[in-house]
């Protein structure tokens, strides 16, 4: 007897977020990247529609990353000294579809660059590369509140993704994102209750829930990956069951966490493996946008995504 698959039909759907505005959308990007839009759990192609594949953003900093391990530094070489060259290498050599720009140089302890300088940098970068941008502050709340509004304005109309808003500091960023037509990253510390609360607070300010991407905060393999996995899974189950306040795509800062693990720095290639395993596990728990570092890891994860999505395409059309 043939085994019958039990197929679930969910009432909820994850929001679709478009990153990047092309000329016809009022921006200057060469292409746009869509994330989210699925109405089923990750990779269950027979249960529902998964219109967009998980996307990967290359992480680029505005300053030379002092604490990156050698293997990572070697992958980019001298380009790390010049953010424009770095971004260019990602796009032209490694065919990046999206960049995640971390404004680490604005942090009071790592250069303390001002708002004007940061905004100028964003404008120049938007001219240099034509892929959609994710723009992240340095994580210093007070400084981010000066820098990010200026950067948001400099990228007005380009449909960037800006972050990270946190429960104690979201109002300034929400106001900027709202005014300049971007989407926002809402970050919570591996805590589903705060993730939900923050989404409500942000939407109360008038920014549509459909313009929020959740950063659930993740841990790398061996460093709490399973906690992040279960939080993401629980949020996704609630969203698919109809909870609109949790129906946002997930962004996961994979590179940052994977390369922090001591195992990642022990033997050659192990860091790449660490980053790949962390990324692929999170794809299975619902990650929609992965921010990654090593080009080789990104290449492997891209292939993994394409294999899975191609498999999905071979299945019968949904009922």
């Amino acid at each position, binding site marked *: 007897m043939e085994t019958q698959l039990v197929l679930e039909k969910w009432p909820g759907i994850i929001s679709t977020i478009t990153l990047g505005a092309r000329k016809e959308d009022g921006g200057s990007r060469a292409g746009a990247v869509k994330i989210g839009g699925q109405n089923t759990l990750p990779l269950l192609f027979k249960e529902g529609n998964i219109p967009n594949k998980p996307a990967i953003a290359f992480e680029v900093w505005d300053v030379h990353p002092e604490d990156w391990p050698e293997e990572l530094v070697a992958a980019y070489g001298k380009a790390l000294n010049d953010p424009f060259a770095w971004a260019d290498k990602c796009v032209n050599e490694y065919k990046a579809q999206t960049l995640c720009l971390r404004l680490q140089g604005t942090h009071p302890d790592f250069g303390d660059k001002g708002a004007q300088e940061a905004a100028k940098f964003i404008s120049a970068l938007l001219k240099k590369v034509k892929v959609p941008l994710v723009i992240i502050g340095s994580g210093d709340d007070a400084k981010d509140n000066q820098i990010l509004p200026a950067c948001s304005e400099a990228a007005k109309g380009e449909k960037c993704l800006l972050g990270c808003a946190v429960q104690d500091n979201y109002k300034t960023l929400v106001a900027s994102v709202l005014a300049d037509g971007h989407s926002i990253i809402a970050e919570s510390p591996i805590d*589903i*209750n*705060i993730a*939900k*609360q923050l989404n*409500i*607070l942000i*939407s109360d300010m008038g920014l549509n*829930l459909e313009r929020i991407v959740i950063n659930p905060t993740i841990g790398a393999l061996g460093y709490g990956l399973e906690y992040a996995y279960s939080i993401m899974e*629980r*949020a996704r189950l*609630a969203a698919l069951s*109809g*909870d*609109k*306040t*949790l129906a946002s795509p997930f962004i996961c800062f994979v590179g940052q966490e994977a390369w922090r693990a001591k195992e990642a720095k022990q033997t050659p290639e192990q860091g790449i493996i660490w980053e790949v395993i962390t990324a692929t596990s999170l794809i299975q728990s619902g990650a929609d946008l992965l921010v990654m570092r090593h080009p080789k890891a990104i290449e492997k994860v891209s292939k993994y995504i394409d294999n899975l999505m191609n498999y999905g395409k071979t299945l019968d059309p949904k009922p």
Partner: protein
Amino acid sequence: MFIIGELINGMYANIGSAIKERNKAEIQKCALEQLASGADALDVNCGPASRHPLVDMPWLVEAIQEVTDKPLCLDSSKPAVIEEGLKAARNKTIINSTTADPEKLDIIIPLAKQYRSKLIGITISAKGIPQNKDQRLELAATIVATCSEKEFPIEDLYLDPIVLPVNVAQAQMKDILESIHEFRIISDPAPKTIVGLSNVSQGTHVRSLINRTFLTMAVAYGLDSAILDPQDKKLMGALITAELILNKNIYCDSYLEAYRKK
């Protein structure tokens, strides 16, 4: 919880006169206010004073459909009135209701099938109102068995244990609550359960408190649906909190607001 707003009922003065004067706007206002307060569907009842329920029911249905596509719960003890409502309905419908009497079931179940309507079955019969849990279960089993026989999908059946006023039938409250739990194990797939809530506080002096306390307890016994006043904010707050405690929704500090955003 599937919430059916109870306020479009001719026994309320505003609705009664709106029906009489064919004042659509008043009905539509009542419909929209209930939906905004969290109702998933609307009960539609011409009221005991309606002299032409066969005309009033479809008029009400048409009036409500102009402003919402939410399901309508057609409430009458007369099958002919329900059928006029079904004929007029473009929205999804729930028939409210059939008793466990064979002659009623023989008319109502085919109607529900013909119009692809859901169905509320109340556990009373010509013999009267059940006096304990066993009698309720017996009547529930009759309704479920007849639905199966007539190939009506059991998952579209809502069983109502008949909630009695606490000041009249205090000794039966626990039986009613337990019936809610036991109805669900009568068959697989399980029938759903429903109560007409306001009856529990009929004639008492603290109606809202009794309503929300009973509802909270019924939710804990697994109640799926209730016909109630969604504009009673304390009632809705208690309901949302009860479901939160049962882990049906994810907690956050603004969980009441979060529920309303759904």
